[in-house]
């Protein structure tokens, strides 16, 4: 199984993701250049955080037209798994692979701190190793992380289980006072309707080692690895039968 980390001009969490996946989680991982359209046989693609194209115009708006995004679109339609973290989430929303938009934080400031996330749906490739309602401690670092979606669409997202993480208190209470950026419904991470694409504002790659104060981020990356292995086993089983 191979992970790919996309590098856009202005990505600055690409090495963090690469390091977390290769050195901490012992996975096979390669960098993918935004100007290429070859995914090098990756099973799982990460769009890392940063400031692609300087966040000019709107965060993620220009990156969405990079050649690699066309390849990622095909990859998803063929069953590939994609995760966007922070600016990566912004790119996924701008490219239409996920629904919604990210506005500047309600308080108008850049926020950089640990938050708590409640796992709302543990039955997805991204939360496979979590339990429903589990609380993860992961940092956020963003200026435009205020997730917006019209109420009726948000309701649909909720009904289909596409809301994966919500900002919450240390014991899982979802309340406005634990909402760092003003996101509707305290939403911190969502998935596409086919659960192949996930976007989240918090940075799991910054929560993979004790030294950094939390290892909860590992679960998100390892969930996908475990889910892909499980899927491969099932396929093998079907072939044998």
């Amino acid at each position, binding site marked *: 199984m191979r992970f790919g980390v996309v590098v856009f001009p202005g990505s600055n969490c690409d090495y963090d993701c690469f390091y977390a996946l290769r050195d901490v989680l012992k996975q096979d991982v390669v960098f993918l250049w935004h100007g290429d359209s070859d995914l090098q046989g990756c099973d799982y693609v990460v769009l890392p955080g940063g400031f692609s194209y300087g966040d000019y*115009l*709107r965060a993620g*708006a*220009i990156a969405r*037209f990079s050649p690699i995004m066309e390849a990622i679109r095909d990859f998803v339609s063929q069953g590939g798994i994609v995760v966007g973290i922070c600016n990566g989430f912004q790119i996924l*929303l*701008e490219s239409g692979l996920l*629904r*919604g*938009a990210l*506005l*500047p*934080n*309600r*308080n*108008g400031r850049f926020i950089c701190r640990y938050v708590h996330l409640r796992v709302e749906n543990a039955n997805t490739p991204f939360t496979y190793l979590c339990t429903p309602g589990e609380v993860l401690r992961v940092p956020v670092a963003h200026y435009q992380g*205020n997730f*917006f*979606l019209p109420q009726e669409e948000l309701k649909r997202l909720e009904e289909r289980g596409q809301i994966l993480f919500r900002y919450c208190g240390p014991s899982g209470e979802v309340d406005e006072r634990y909402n760092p950026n*003003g996101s509707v419904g305290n939403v911190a991470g969502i998935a596409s309707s086919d659960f192949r694409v996930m976007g989240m504002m918090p940075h799991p790659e910054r929560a993979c080692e004790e030294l950094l104060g939390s290892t909860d981020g590992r679960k998100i990356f390892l969930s996908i690895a475990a889910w892909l292995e499980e899927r491969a086993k099932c396929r093998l089983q079907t072939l044998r039968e």
Partner: protein
Amino acid sequence: MKYCGKVVVTLKPGVFDPQGTTIRNALHALAYREVEEVETGKYFKIILEAATKEEAKERIQRMCDQLLANPVIEQYTFEVEEYR
């Protein structure tokens, strides 16, 4: 023929505008108490070559839909004039 398109992109009504609110508060701090609301947005001046004004309008509208505005949160208006 050269044309000039002037595009203004603003947030849709109901979408919170933290920049606008901060600027309004700053105006209040400067004693402009009469200010009720401030809305921020983006302005683009686009010079382009087109056969007719209609074509220039159509091209600019497509640019707005494709890149300049995000339809989930933003709306836009534009005008097109001959450019010399």
